[in-house]
């Protein structure tokens, strides 16, 4: 069976170390290059090249590899290769784009061809998760060739055709070292940037899997006999970020008032056809390590909002800018407009400024000059509070919020690998964050998808799009 997967934009590079884009470059390359571990649709880590892995102490991880694994050119896939790859990324003279993944890695110690240890400078509980995104290149080949435009297989598939900007077709790698075999005769990744065209291709039977479908289109796809559609919670939370460094967002009552003013359920219900789940007063989804199950969302209470606004003493006569990175989040413009309308209902005037995502990021990361309100969706690939909450840590350039208590809890959570003490620390942190409300908590962005009836698909909420999650429909 040949299958085709639609992607929203073209693969940039074939070098797995030059891109952090999970849904795009890495999804394709993960069919070609091996990783130590693979993350299943339920986010559990599964052995791949590594058969076993464990934390020996707070600062040391040990891995055991499958013996006799090779690349298609015969190069060995052993501990030495892993070490070479990590060094390639972190090489101080020529760091690769994903070098920040390994910033805490101190050293890689090869014990035997099938065993090695990784030492970190501070506790790195999410290391194994991070490694599930890290692909390995054959050292000799990589030095002799240009990995940005050529590949060599070390995993289930190899490239049979590559038309830049249009499609990449994969075929099974005959020399694959593992036990299982490729389920498809060929896998094609096709670029279809326009949503309507993507849906059309699915309905025309040209592609077997699409994502980023507006929620209201799901039912229509489902209704056709060519395909079915659905949604699961993604790991990405969408919220309205406040720039608390600017008045009046430095006012806690004002921030809380805005949280009361938004009818999150209505948004989830009406805009997302009930496919989105309202955030539980935190930016993490239940899949995260560190999720706080005890928190509940701010209720929708416009009266309370108005009252708080009054108490806050904020002058509401001037509109507040509300930045919207266009085209970045599923139905982002709709959510922004809906929220703006709800704000207005309680008397807070806003002025939407939609801008191209790059321009937004520039303000966010470089100029450090975010508007007072902006729509943002954030996820952390390791699905761990340690990563996501750090983005709100005082002093962090992404934070725009300065709360000392929150900071303390985060430091506590990051200084140990002990699961229980970490959970406790994050519970405390999320409570602070909920109350202080540096954002309007909205919802977990649904990961929507459509699949042709020729295959079955195990949906997942992170961005991976892989043939491994699909099966030919019998």
């Amino acid at each position: 069976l040949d299958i085709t997967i639609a992607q929203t934009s073209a693969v940039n590079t074939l070098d797995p170390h030059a891109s952090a884009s999970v849904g795009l470059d890495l999804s394709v390359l993960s069919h070609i290059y091996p990783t130590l571990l693979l993350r299943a649709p339920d986010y559990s880590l599964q052995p791949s090249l590594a058969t076993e892995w464990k934390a020996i102490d707070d600062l040391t991880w040990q891995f055991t590899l499958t013996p006799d694994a090779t690349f298609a050119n015969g190069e060995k896939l052993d501990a030495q290769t892993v070490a070479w790859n990590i060094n390639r990324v972190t090489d101080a003279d020529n760091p690769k784009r994903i070098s920040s993944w390994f910033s805490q890695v101190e050293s890689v110690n090869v014990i035997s061809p099938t065993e090695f240890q990784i030492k970190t400078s501070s506790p790195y509980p999410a290391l194994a998760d991070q490694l599930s995104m890290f692909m390995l290149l054959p050292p000799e080949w990589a030095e002799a060739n240009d990995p940005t435009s050529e590949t060599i297989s070390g995993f289930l598939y190899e490239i049979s055709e590559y038309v830049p900007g249009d499609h990449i077709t994969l075929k099974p790698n005959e020399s694959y070292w593992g036990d299982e075999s490729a389920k498809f005769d060929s896998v094609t990744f096709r670029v279809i940037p326009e949503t309507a065209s993507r849906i059309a291709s699915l309905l025309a039977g040209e592609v077997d899997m699409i994502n980023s479908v507006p929620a209201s289109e799901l039912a229509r796809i489902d209704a056709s006999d060519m395909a079915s559609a659905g949604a699961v919670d993604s790991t990405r939370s969408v919220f309205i970020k406040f720039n608390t460094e600017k008045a009046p967002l430095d006012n806690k009552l004002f921030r809380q008032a805005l949280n009361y003013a938004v009818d999150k359920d209505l948004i989830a219900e009406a805009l997302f056809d009930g496919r989105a789940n309202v955030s539980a007063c935190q930016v993490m989804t239940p899949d995260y390590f560190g999720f706080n199950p005890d928190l509940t969302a701010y209720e929708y209470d416009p009266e309370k909002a108005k009252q708080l606004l009054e108490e806050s003493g904020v002058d509401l006569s001037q509109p507040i800018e509300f930045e919207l990175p266009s085209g970045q989040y599923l139905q982002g413009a709709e959510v922004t407009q809906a929220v703006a309308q709800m704000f207005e209902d309680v008397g807070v005037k806003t002025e939407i400024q939609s801008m191209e995502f790059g321009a937004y990021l520039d303000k966010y990361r470089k100029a450090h000059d975010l508007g007072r309100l902006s729509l943002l969706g954030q996820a952390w690939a390791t699905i761990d509070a340690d990563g996501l909450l750090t983005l709100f840590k005082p002093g962090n350039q992404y934070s725009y919020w300065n709360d000392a208590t929150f900071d303390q809890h985060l430091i506590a959570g990051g200084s140990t690998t002990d699961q229980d003490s970490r959970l406790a620390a994050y519970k405390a942190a999320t409570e602070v964050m909920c109350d202080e409300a540096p954002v309007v908590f909205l919802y977990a962005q649904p990961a929507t998808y459509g699949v042709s009836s020729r295959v079955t698909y195990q949906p997942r909420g992170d961005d991976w799009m892989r043939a491994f999650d699909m099966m030919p429909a019998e």
Partner: protein
Amino acid sequence: MKNLIKDLMRSKAGLIGAILLLLIVFVAVFAPFLDLPDPTRGDLRARLAGPTWDGLFSPGAHPLGTDEVGRDILSRMIHGSRVTLLVATTAVVLGGIVGTALGIWAGYKGGLVDRVLMRLVDIQLAIPLMLLALLVVAALGPSLRNVVLVLALTSWIRYARIIRAQVLSLREREFVQSAHAIGASTMRIMFFHILPNVLTPALVVGTLELARIIIMDSALSFLGLGVQPPTPSWGRMLADGRVYISSAWWTVTFPGLAIVLTVLSVNLFGDWLRDYFDPKTRNKK
């Protein structure tokens, strides 16, 4: 003027265009006085509701359906006509003034001025719209005014080119020499003798540009750089509704139709205007 109207009456296409155009402008002008739902506020629960003629005159009716945030499409279209026409007209006028002035200057002066200007036109044509738009937005921030600016920036070239060509032949005409002969200054010649004679072609380019710019506005919105939400403009509506094209056809079809109709009427009218003012295609005196 009387002749103009008489000739218009005789031209089927021109008349249709003129009437349609008048109608559109009329609706745009009087939109605020119509009893319409707020075009920027919607009912999320009534999102993407189809057109229905039931209870047409009751307050909650949406004869052309609602959009993706539950706003009344009819109201957005009518208010959008104001924005769209305002944006398009200002851009056309702005581009027209600059383009005509430069076209006259280049055409009349010729030589170096001309060559520099024409290469400048080449340069601008090679730079994609998006980059231009981004530049303006980066430099001046997103706003309706800057959308106009971007569109005007794409427009002046066409005036400049056409007007320049016109001036090249005009400056050989004897009345220009005659102005020289009485000692008129270059400025005077350009302003009193050349300009009035290129106003008609400029007007014709203007009608064509108006049509093009209305469509450009939708392309800008398509790239996420057009009019800011929730302000309605036809281009914006078309761009925002396009994902729902097959499940909620009304979100794009009505604004699309409005654009087509406007462009059609402007062009019909413009074609007639050109034929009318062109002494060659017009009946010889």
